[in-house]
């Protein structure tokens, strides 16, 4: 961590890290404690604006918006986490194997990736989700699949560049096995490229989940997420309650701003 700071001593990294840590920290606390039960309705406190009692106001059912945002952001972040974990994991695995060994398998897998990237990823995810139906697990699966090619591509490029360097030749000569060369010799050298990609992946995953759910193909109606809430909140804008949509939108904006600043900061070495 200390080294990371020394290496990326720029404002993008600092601001991005602070913003991300704050937002994620608040959301994690929200998983254990919220000021109100996110689903508790209070007829006496319907559609109120922000106040000391209800920090971000209440909706038409008298539910505390702040508590609901905490819960929704938690769901969105959890989805983003698994999307990036699966997408980056599979992408790194495919990229490492194809980049290191090359050959026919490389050709086949990379052409499949080309085919996947030929479609806009959000469109592809939309179609897949429209077929599969909404639900948290479907969102994770589809988005992870759509995310694989971008990770595979950058990891492959790094592996095929690094495998030609002398220190890899040297490791082969020392009798180091292929798996160990890939994991212990090459992979650590891909981190300067992989870390920003993961950070930007988070950014894209949050945004993609929000868009999917906003359009009604993301998480199912009974589940909560930021995109779902944004979709619900649009009904309130014209009824004189713009703050609901504004606060949900602001949460999404701050989350992705944090991740993208972090990604930008990680790319700039100092």
């Amino acid at each position, binding site marked *: 961590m200390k080294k990371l700071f020394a290496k990326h001593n720029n404002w993008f990294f600092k601001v991005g890290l602070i913003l991300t840590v704050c937002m994620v920290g608040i959301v994690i606390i929200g998983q254990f404690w919220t000021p109100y039960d996110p689903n508790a309705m209070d007829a006496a406190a319907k559609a109120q604006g922000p106040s000391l009692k209800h920090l971000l106001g209440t909706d038409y059912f008298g539910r505390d918006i702040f508590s609901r945002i905490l819960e929704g952001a938690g769901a969105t972040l959890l989805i983003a986490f698994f999307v990036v974990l699966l997408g980056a994991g599979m992408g790194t695995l495919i990229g490492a194997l194809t980049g290191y060994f090359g050959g026919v398998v490389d050709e086949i897998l990379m052409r499949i990736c080309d085919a996947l990237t030929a479609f806009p990823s959000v469109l592809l995810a939309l179609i897949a989700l429209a077929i599969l139906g909404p639900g948290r697990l479907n969102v994770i699966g589809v988005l992870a699949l759509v995310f694989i090619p971008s990770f595979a591509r950058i990891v492959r490029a790094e592996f095929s560049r690094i495998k030609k*360097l*002398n*220190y890899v*030749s*040297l*490791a*082969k*000569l*020392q*009798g*180091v096995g292929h798996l160990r060369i890939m994991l*212990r*010799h090459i992979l*650590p*050298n891909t*981190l300067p490229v992989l870390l920003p990609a993961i950070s930007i992946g988070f950014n894209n995953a949050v945004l993609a989940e929000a868009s999917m759910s906003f359009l009604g193909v993301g998480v199912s109606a009974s589940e909560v997420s930021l995109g779902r809430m944004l979709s619900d909140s649009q009904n309130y804008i014209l009824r004189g309650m713009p703050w609901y949509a504004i606060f949900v939108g602001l949460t999404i904006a701050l989350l992705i701003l944090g991740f993208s600043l972090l990604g930008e900061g990680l790319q700039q070495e100092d």
Partner: protein
Amino acid sequence: MAEEKKKILEVRNVSTSYTRKSPLGKTKIQHVLHDVSFDLYEGEALGLVGESGSGKTTLARAILGFLPKYEGTITHYSEHPQVVFQDPYTALNPARTIEWILEEPLKILKKYNKEERRARIVDMLKRVGLDESYLDRKPSQLSGGQRQRVSIAAALLMEPRFIVADEPVSALDVTIQAQILKLLAEMKEQFGLSYLFISHDMNVVYQLCDRVIVMRKGNVVEEGEIDQIFEAPKHPYTRELVEASK
């Protein structure tokens, strides 16, 4: 030579070529190595000299097993041949510390436990003119000469009897060159090593080698004892190289 010497490497009739297709569809066969044969004996430093494009690095790659396809046979009579590369900047893993880089070959050998490995690494660092303070450093914190010392240490830790040195000093300053050459000569004495020393610089070869092979365009044009090559070169190309180095 009268006395019988033990072979450490035997190269017989090694050829390799690649086909190049011109835009007009004609295929051209480009010979990189053409019928190269030589022996390397125990305790000997053999210089391999030639200009760039003479095939000397390709030959080294074939000897080290990095060349997937070639004709002829290469026979090693020793285990774990090692290499010291020309470019000390890509020879060491930039993401790792010197300790990790030096420990890796020992882990693969599986002969020593943790303390023994550490002791051997420290001992080897001292032999190549460095010390324990380098253990925690990354290659980026070292100079070219220091990196080459680490490369030599890494090679020696594999306990080889034969090392290929591919232009090990040509990327270094002249003063550092002399230091590294001296180190290579010392290590040769200490460990009874054999070298295949590749260089384009006759002067450098003269300082370290007992025998020289001169290559040009994939062919061996002359082979002989170092003094004979320097004082009475037979082939005009060798004469050219010797003249250029004076």
